[in-house]
């Protein structure tokens, strides 16, 4: 058969070329495309930024304005879906979108700015309001007030109480 076999094969096969870009293509279930943050659901906990292998998600804290910024840069994302796995609020999701080409780098950013809450002790913004509310839902009622303090103030308060307690005991 040899080469004639190949020629027959090619003819019998017909057209194998897809029509793209003139017709859309089909994508399988579970395709890992563009990650998208749902800004309504995001609580700004930063779990995604911690696991993201290329640090495509970065967190900036603006203490003056009292905002926490979650910056997702698609141009660095490796589409690994780790962020989707760890997000406690199920806010980040990998869509099937793959047509991501853009003419400028700015177009590749998705930014979510969340309001931060000021510490009742020192007045420094320390965590997003949404994250605090998210934790509060999981905490027993009597521990909730502790959330009003930043970790530093909480530690200070705790040690103060301990000293008081120790003195009282003596």
């Amino acid at each position, binding site marked *: 058969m040899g080469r004639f076999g190949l020629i027959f094969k090619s003819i019998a096969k017909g057209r194998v070329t897809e029509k793209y870009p003139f017709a859309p293509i089909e994508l399988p279930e579970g395709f890992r495309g563009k990650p998208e943050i749902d800004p309504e659901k995001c609580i700004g906990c930063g779990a995604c930024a911690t696991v993201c292998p*290329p640090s495509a998600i970065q967190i900036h804290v603006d203490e003056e304005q009292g905002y926490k910024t979650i910056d997702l840069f698609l141009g*660095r994302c490796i589409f690994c879906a780790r962020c989707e796995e760890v997000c406690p609020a199920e806010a980040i999701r990998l869509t099937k979108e793959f*047509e*991501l080409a*853009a003419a400028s780098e700015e177009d590749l*950013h998705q930014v979510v700015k969340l309001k931060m809450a*000021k510490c009742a002790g020192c007045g420094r913004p320390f965590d997003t*309001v949404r994250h605090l509310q998210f934790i509060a839902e999981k905490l027993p009622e009597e521990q909730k007030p502790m959330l*009003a303090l930043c970790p530093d103030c909480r530690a200070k308060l705790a040690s103060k109480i301990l000293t008081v307690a120790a003195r009282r*005991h003596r």
Partner: protein
Amino acid sequence: MMFKKSLWVFHLNSGSCNGCDIEVLNIFTPKQDVERLGIKLVGSPRHADAIAFTGPITRECLPKAIEAFMAVPEPKIVLAIGSCACGGGIWFDSYAVIGGIKEFYKILKEKHGIEPPTTIYIPGCPPKPEAIIYGVALARKAVEQKQKSEIFVEESDIDDAATLFKEATSTRHFIPKIEVIKRGE
């Protein structure tokens, strides 16, 4: 429209892992076959209309990348293919790479005073062959750009934790702990 007809591309591997290179090659095989759209890989930057970078541009290949870039005649298009080329990828801050096309332009500007040309960023790791085709189509303005930057700012009146969780500073809530200490001693 700058390039009405066939787009000839010079592909430059600037330290990529090969994933993107194979996908670039892939679009010339039967399933995608972009030669039907007049796109062709050429062997010399001097014959090219567009130069495609794959990889984060390592220190070692920086001088060669600059040379190849300058050899492409004006007007030219740059295709940054893959997350490595767009933003440095997983290597973006390593000591051995310069970290993507933007840094490359910075160096070009500083050293040679060259302004960045039209650049198409094609993220993906590696981008699907169709994503590359889409990018090239975008370069030729044959399709609309779908990807746009999004900024969401939360509007909220609450900004201090005390209003959320009142009586925060009162030591009352910690008293059970003191009992524990007493018993322990």
